């Protein structure tokens, strides 16, 4: 059974068609590379899956059930976590506060439910250790390096029992060593049966870690094939439009 099934998903902003008739299927533990030029519709597709906005038409099934996400929290509750391109961090809060933003641990009885600082620090420290990131849960994000910030954003996806993690350009702004760590992490997610959608401009990353690659151009999916049956040259041709279809 497929984990995620999109059928004929489309999105119009006024007269502009950002996305048209996209079908996409994803299985458990599968890593899908989603590629395409700027404005090809990748971000729009991701935002529909993440609950940022609703499709103009089409249906979405997740985990065997039809789903409709009205807010990002709905997608998260269903088991879809997103690492946004700009990481979506509040600079003025600590690493732990950012990891738990929107789902803080609390103790006590309503209306006297106070933040459980110790438990959140503890859990965040464990997550950073698991990600092999030297990040102090109590430090402000403002003072952190690019890699540490990345770790904070990724640690969020490990809080709940996610089934699908969507990463929007996770390797665009970090060092070579950190790219390697992020790719390692994606492999660890797959080993646990978690599906990953990796949006990236970096061909080597996609061919290192993905099982399948889908290419978007002008709001449509123009290719979707196993990584073994394609080549960086073919994908580049599909992205630029030199090749019409695979």
């Amino acid at each position: 059974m497929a984990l995620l099934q999109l059928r004929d998903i489309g999105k119009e902003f006024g007269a502009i068609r950002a996305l048209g008739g996209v079908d996409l299927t994803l299985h458990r533990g599968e890593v899908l590379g989603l590629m395409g030029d700027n404005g090809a519709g990748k971000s729009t597709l991701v935002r529909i899956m993440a609950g940022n906005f609703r499709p103009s038409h089409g249906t979405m099934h997740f985990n065997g059930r039809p789903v409709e996400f009205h807010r990002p929290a709905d997608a998260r509750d269903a088991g879809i976590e997103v690492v946004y391109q700009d990481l979506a961090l509040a600079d003025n809060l600590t690493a732990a506060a950012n990891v738990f933003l929107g789902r803080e641990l609390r103790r006590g009885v309503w209306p006297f439910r106070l933040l459980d600082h110790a438990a959140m620090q503890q859990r965040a420290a464990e997550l950073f250790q698991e990600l092999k990131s030297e990040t102090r849960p109590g430090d402000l994000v403002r003072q952190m390096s690019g890699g540490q910030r990345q770790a904070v954003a990724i640690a969020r996806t490990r809080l709940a029992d996610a089934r699908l993690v969507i990463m929007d350009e996770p390797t665009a702004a970090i060092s070579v060593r950190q790219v390697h760590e992020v790719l390692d992490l994606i492999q660890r997610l797959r080993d646990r049966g978690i599906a990953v959608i990796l949006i990236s401009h970096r061909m080597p990353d996609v061919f290192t870690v993905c099982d399948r690659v889908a290419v978007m151009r002008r709001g449509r999916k123009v290719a979707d094939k196993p990584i073994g049956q394609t080549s960086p040259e073919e994908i580049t041709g599909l992205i630029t439009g030199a090749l019409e279809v695979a």
Partner: protein
Amino acid sequence: MSTGLHFTNVGRAPWHRRGFFASQTFYVAVAFALIALGMAILSPIFLSGGNLYNISKNFSFVAIVALGVTLVIVTGGIDLSVGSTMALVALVTVMTLNAVAGRFSGLPGLALGAALCAGLATSLAIGLINGVLVAKVGLSPFVTTLGMLSIARGLCYVITDGRGQAPQGDDAELLYSLADGQLLGLPMPVVYLLVLAGLLGLVLHHSAWGRHLFAIGGNERAARLCGVRVDAVKISAYVLSALAAGFAGVLMAGWLGSVPANLAFGYELRIIAASVIGGANLAGGAGGPLGAVLGSALIEVIRNGLVLGKVSPYWQDTLIGLIIILAVLVDRLRARRAG
């Protein structure tokens, strides 16, 4: 909170460059202590019981409203309507008290209770309108609350025809004792201020709501993406700001014994100044009750010092403006040094 972590390549700032000791609130606390010390040496009257009693009472009204405005400033907004809100709520409360005076004879407190409910409803309405226009409709906080400043002040003149209103009836005395009495030797406004500031400190730093307030000020988009109910939290900040203003207005009514239609005229600037001096950042994401109280106290102590030093009162505003800039400047210099 120590987690016992030791990293090879991630340093840690020394204690005096992080946390409370590196905050603007801390500098202002030190400045406040120094100025108070200087005044105590220069003027024997400064530390007299009567003078301290007056200072603490005078700054309480401003500080209570500054607590509420600080919440709005933390979200990255601004509330210019608080001065007018103080006046309108005080007038509605007193006029309701006078309208129902005598109808509840034999039931002490009931008339005042009805009057306070009317005031509460007025505060809620102002806060909700501000909050919904800013959070749901997406209007700029500055323009929205500037409009509300004018609307509320205009209504003050409309409902009174410009005449001052004095509390009457059996419950007027009750209002005076609640607003202008004493508890354990402290003036009532100070008691309310301390309780509210303590509560706010607890809620800001130890509740999910408080954390969300800071997150919205730091990065509103991120907060929204993380499932924070941004609109609801913002609206609650404007509502609490209006409630604080209304409460302080009623306290002033009890203190003055009469409410002129121009009550608290121009107070919004002193209140915002107090928040900013205390460390609230107009760009959002920083501020707290301790800062609001310290900022208000600092302004009042300086005003008091000028009076005791027989300096022309015309210098007050000039000096307060200087302190606003100085406080923000010191914080900026520190931030630059820390990199």
